[in-house]
């Protein structure tokens, strides 16, 4: 059979082979030497399992049906059997879908042969253990029975001992291939075949079922739709139909159940199929379930997503700014303390899971990193400074792309691992390899929903269950839930609808909006390529324009009715306190905030000028008063470091300080009418005086006012950025080259053609850069090259090659001189020249 498959594969056109390796890239890593190798790899258990994982429910059902039916299977028989499982009539969509699916399975080399004799590829039968929940065929199920026991069973159900002659059915209408059991029963094989033939006859099975009690029928019904095996004590009991009493006895004695172990029984496939009324599947849909959910205005959804994208970008920036000044520590096991996460959540005004998402994405994007392994702190990286100055749309694209591709799972923050350790945010183990794939597939599902449809979580899960029936489980379900929740938070979706800019992030997204994709046109990764550039372009017009003005009001607030330009935003953050954020920002001027601005070296005039310049309305008088008031008092007192003194040009003010009882703990001493010295440190003194209601300024040794500013810090550490994994499968030229190589190898393999001898003369020499270029060119054109190569023993050899692919410092090529595919280390290629 394997040779049959190989021959079939060899007979496929190059186009078909290219489609095969493009859809199953694992078959050409590394490139097999010949078609036989390709066939072998295509039927290896791991490769089959991988491709089966990618099948949707209908394609899988087609394959399962094929496996269940006795070979060879005609296309019509296959269709007839599948049609039984359809809930309605077998209409046009079913026929089209089946035709396409069979073709696709052929392309994937999961089934082969012409329509009149379809067969599952080698390895498929083994990979599909219990197809559609059916038990093994009788011939296999009764493998462990002794010939004597088999004879008893055959006798009990066929009515004859020795297994000769026709079964004594009432109507005797069992046509079937009974030749097998016409032969005298000489051993297990014969007995099993006789039994299989009997069970393969519907009339016999129907009669046997009529004989058993209703309880026994109920037991069978339990197993009908799988799982087909059950547990009973003493499964190998030797009971005869005539004396069987208990339901299980009745079933065992009539071979309606087969004992597969001391305590396990299984429903033979033939019986199972009979009970299912000939159907292999209970209900089958050739089309994926339609995505259901509330309908939204797509424009509004886009805008909502854009608003959320803006908010998310801003949250990341806010987080980094906060961590610049006040970084949280790195836990010993890595990660961020729960307390710090809570603080971030409060700071960002987000629920904890969303704050965790902000932190994880910022980390994955390399904007924050641990400053060191011992007593480290989480600090923004230099990359943050580069990110910060970009436009909002670019910043968002950087974050969203990273979210889509990262293996981190922020949703698991707070979970416990197998060893019951808490998984904190930024914990090294807060990851799973399938995270990125689940995110992409889940968003891919949203992408095929109709315009404006916001599919509900249950509907997305149902669709995924149809699209990838073999990839399921609680863990994936959770990841899907996280994905939808996080996509909304990031602004990839808005109101549950995939936004235009979110769609553009997806690899090779289908531009057409067909909500129903019969059978799917293969892997959506085919067309490949991250289109991040367009995501930013789509997002930009949806974002609010940055403003350069605010509205000043008499209650000492400033309202920025939209995002501000960077300079104004930083200035306001210094001179005012933020009261509320969102679409707009509300700032409040107070004594404290203005003092901060004055401390940072701004004068009252500067502040007022700045306000006037950026106010859409006249500066309210109370605000002017507040600024001049604070400025007037600011710096009226000066405090020095060296001796910790207070000096003031106004002696009465110092009188005031000296007279104030609260100054007692500071142990003040009046040095001069305008100077007080203290034994307290400068900071204590400053704080105490401020607490008493004064506004002293710090003074340097030279008598200048010290300008204070918040320390902004950066880590030296490298950001933990991994380049986003390329989404695309294989590029077309790689695929083509691989197929060419296999063909060439195969040709050589089959003809056992003599190795071509290398050209006479010294092997060519050329610089290594030229070598790589020439090889790349040869791969592209599919031409042969002559190279000089140092083999593993260090001998200089000369070869004629047909290069297939080049990666990781190695060249895979068909070696004409050795008539086989080999891998060559690039650094040992001494030179290259064209052939002919």
């Amino acid at each position, binding site marked *: 059979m394997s040779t049959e498959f190989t021959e079939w594969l060899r007979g496929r056109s190059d186009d078909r082979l290219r489609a095969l390796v493009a859809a199953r890239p694992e078959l050409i890593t590394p490139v097999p030497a010949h078609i036989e190798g390709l066939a072998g790899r295509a039927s290896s258990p791991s490769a089959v399992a991988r491709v089966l994982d990618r099948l949707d429910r209908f394609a899988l059902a087609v394959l399962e049906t094929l496996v269940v039916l006795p070979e060879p299977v005609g296309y019509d028989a296959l269709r007839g059997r599948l049609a039984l499982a359809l809930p309605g009539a077998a209409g046009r969509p079913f026929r089209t879908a089946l035709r396409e699916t069979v073709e696709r399975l052929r392309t994937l080399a999961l089934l082969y042969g012409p329509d009149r004799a379809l067969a599952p590829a080698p390895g498929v039968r083994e990979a599909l253990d219990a197809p559609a929940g059916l038990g093994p065929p009788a011939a296999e199920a009764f493998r462990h029975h002794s010939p004597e026991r088999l004879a008893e069973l055959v006798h009990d159900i066929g009515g004859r001992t020795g297994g000769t002659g026709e079964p004594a059915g009432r109507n005797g209408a069992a046509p079937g291939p009974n030749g097998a059991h016409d032969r005298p029963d000489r051993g297990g094989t014969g007995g099993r075949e006789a039994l299989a033939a009997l069970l393969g006859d519907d009339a016999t099975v129907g009669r046997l079922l009529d004989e058993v009690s209703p309880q026994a029928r109920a037991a069978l019904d339990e197993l009908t739709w799988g799982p087909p095996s059950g547990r009973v004590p003493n499964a190998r009991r030797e009971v005869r139909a005539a004396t069987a009493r208990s339901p299980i006895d009745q079933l065992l004695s009539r071979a309606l159940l087969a004992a597969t172990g001391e305590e396990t029984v299984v429903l033979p496939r033939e019986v199972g199929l009979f009970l299912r009324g000939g159907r292999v599947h209970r209900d089958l849909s050739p089309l994926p379930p339609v995505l259901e959910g509330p309908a939204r205005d797509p424009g509004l959804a886009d805008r909502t997503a854009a608003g959320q994208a803006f908010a998310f970008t801003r949250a990341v920036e806010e987080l980094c700014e906060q961590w610049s000044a006040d970084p949280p520590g790195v836990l010993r096991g890595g990660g961020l303390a729960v307390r710090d996460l809570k603080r971030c959540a409060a700071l960002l005004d987000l629920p904890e899971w969303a704050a965790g998402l902000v932190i994880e994405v910022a980390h994955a994007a390399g904007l924050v990193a641990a400053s060191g392994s011992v007593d480290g702190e989480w600090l923004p990286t230099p990359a943050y400074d580069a990110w910060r100055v970009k436009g909002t749309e670019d910043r968002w694209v950087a974050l969203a792309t990273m979210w889509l591709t990262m293996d981190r799972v922020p949703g698991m923050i707070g979970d416990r691992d197998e060893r019951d350790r808490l998984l904190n945010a930024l914990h090294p183990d807060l990851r799973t390899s399938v995270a990125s794939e689940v995110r992409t597939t889940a968003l891919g599902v949203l992408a095929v929903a109709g315009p404006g449809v916001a599919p509900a979580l249950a509907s997305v899960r149902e669709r995924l269950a149809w699209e990838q029936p073999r990839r399921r489980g609680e863990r994936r379900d959770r990841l899907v839930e996280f994905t939808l929740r996080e996509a909304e938070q990031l602004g990839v979706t808005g109101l549950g609808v995939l936004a235009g800019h979110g769609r553009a992030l997806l690899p090779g997204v289908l531009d057409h909006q067909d909500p129903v994709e019969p059978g799917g046109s293969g892997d959506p990764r085919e067309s490949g390529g991250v289109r991040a550039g367009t995501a930013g372009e789509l997002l930009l017009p949806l974002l609010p324009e940055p403003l350069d003005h605010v509205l000043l009001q008499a209650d000492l607030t400033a309202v920025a009715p939209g995002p501000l330009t960077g300079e104004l935003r930083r200035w306001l953050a210094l001179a005012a306190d933020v009261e509320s*954020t*969102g679409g707009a920002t509300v700032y409040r001027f107070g004594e404290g905030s203005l003092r901060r601005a004055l401390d940072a070296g701004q004068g009252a005039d500067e502040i007022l000028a700045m306000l006037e310049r950026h106010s859409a309305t006249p500066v309210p008088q109370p605000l002017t008063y507040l600024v001049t008031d604070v400025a007037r008092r600011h710096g009226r007192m000066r405090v020095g470091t060296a001796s910790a003194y207070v000096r003031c040009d106004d002696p009465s003010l110092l009188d005031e300080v000296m007279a104030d009882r609260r100054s007692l703990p500071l142990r003040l001493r009046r040095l001069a009418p305008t100077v007080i010295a203290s034994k307290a440190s400068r900071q204590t003194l400053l704080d105490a005086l401020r607490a008493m209601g004064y506004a002293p300024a710090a003074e340097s040794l030279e008598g200048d006012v010290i300008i204070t500013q918040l320390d902004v810090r950066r880590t030296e550490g490298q950001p933990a950025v991994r380049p986003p994994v390329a989404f695309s499968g294989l590029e077309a030229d790689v695929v083509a080259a691989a197929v060419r190589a296999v063909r060439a190898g195969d040709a050589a393999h089959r003809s056992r053609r003599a190795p071509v001898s290398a050209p006479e003369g010294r092997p060519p020499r050329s610089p290594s850069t030229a070598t790589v270029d020439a090889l790349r060119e040869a791969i592209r054109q599919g031409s042969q090259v002559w190279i000089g190569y140092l083999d593993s023993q260090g001998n200089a050899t000369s070869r004629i090659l047909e290069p297939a692919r080049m990666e990781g410092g190695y060249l895979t090529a068909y070696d004409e001189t050795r008539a086989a595919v080999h891998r060559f280390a690039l650094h040992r290629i001494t030179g290259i020249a064209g052939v002919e």
Partner: protein
Amino acid sequence: MTDGPLIVQSDKTLLLEVEHERADECRKAIAPFAELERAPEHVHTYRVTPLALWNARAAGHDAEQVIDALIGYSRYPVPHALLVDVAETMARYGRLRLEKHPVHGLVLTSTDRAVLEEVLRSRKIQPLLGERLGDDGVAVHPSERGNIKQHLLKLGWPAEDLAGYVDGERHPISLAEDGWTLRTYQREAAEAFWHGGSGVVVLPCGAGKTIVGAAAMAHAQATTLILVTNTVSAHQWKQELIRRTSLTADEIGEYTGTKKEIRPVTIATYQVMTTRRQGVYRHLELFDARDWGLIVYDEVHLLPAPIFRMTADLQARRRVGLTATLVREDGREGDVFSLIGPKRYDAPWKEMENQGWIAPADCVEVRVTLSESERLAYAMADAEERYRFCATTPAKLRVSEALVRRHPDEQVLVIGQYIDQLDELGEHLGAPVIKGETKVKERERLFQAFRDREIQVLVVSKVANFSIDLPEAAVAIQVSGTFGSRQEEAQRLGRVLRPKSDGGGARFYSVVSRDTVDQDFAAHRQRFLAEQGYAYQIIDADDVLAGE
């Protein structure tokens, strides 16, 4: 991006740009479910609180309308989480209902069994309940109608009270609209209350809350108990009712420290109701003295805690609360909601001013500077004496005098906290002083003289903070106050906001000492008014003195 006037913030505040052409319609659309928090000149701030959403639910709005309004007027996309939260919060109201049952009296029912089970498990709720009636209901002791509503609100499942009201003893009352008519908003307010059954009407000072009360009584046509803040206010109510309604002096009783009359319409003060002797509220019987059909609470934001407790027992009677603000310094807004009722009507100050119902006002802060010796003394003063010291600086006397001289033809009120200071001022200005010890009769004589313009200047202590009607006070000078009370500032401004016969504006001076706690407190107090759109102008005392 749409160009709406509204910006929705992540902390559930709504910013409304006033100059925007759609600002007015937007304000109307969001007012039912958002509390106006601040209304300075350009951008008004509303807040969407659970109470505000439940108020909206009680007024018959649904989540759909709220979300439509938010999305329709918002300039930027509204965060989805916020919309979900709005819908969820609103859905909480009315899941539980208090209803009347022919057999079991008062019952708590629910359409959502899980919610009922949740609240039944609460240890605070359990003692208030009687027997379980099937899956969806439970009997409630009729006396606990108020308590259970309070506790359910705290649990976040406010109950809709559909148990109805007793009609009370009938008493014919009608409005006597001779020479005046009910203003549109007054009629709307009274009707909104009547349809809602019970609730609070929010109107600015000077907008005629007494008349709204009278209109409510005309709706009820029943004996009425009116609770007011103090005796003077009680007299005022009586005068006003006699003038505005068919009621005669004989039908209206006063229940105060001095008089204890119980008539078909009885006006009692909070003070007398909360007087305790030997730990017992002596005047509780008033509530049971008649079969009241309506209870009117004046100045709900000042309602003292004992009255809340008494009100909890009066849930079967119709209640109307009147107030200028739902902001309570003690944060008991939730109790107002569950015990008096949801907000039934609301109109912002500035709007009323624009419509000419209240006088426009200029607010001026005059800053005086302490002398050097005063500053020294101030620095040495005990913390608790500091405010008094700087608030009563003699410099304020001179400034007040100068300010009074600035307005020779207008009626001037000088308001202060400290009696010594007021006496001194009275002496300086040659004006009578009304303070706590002034006899009620004397007070009224002085008020009348002031009204009749026989007296131009009147010095009053905080006894005059509330509910006195001084229609022609055009100028108020505040020299000291109760520390940082925002609410007091609003009340005092209210003294001058009543429409003047000459249609002129009002002026409110606040004299404060520079660089002292006086200034800090003043800033705190003014914040409320600035947020209501009354911008303060700041001038220097020296300018006032030099300007003479």
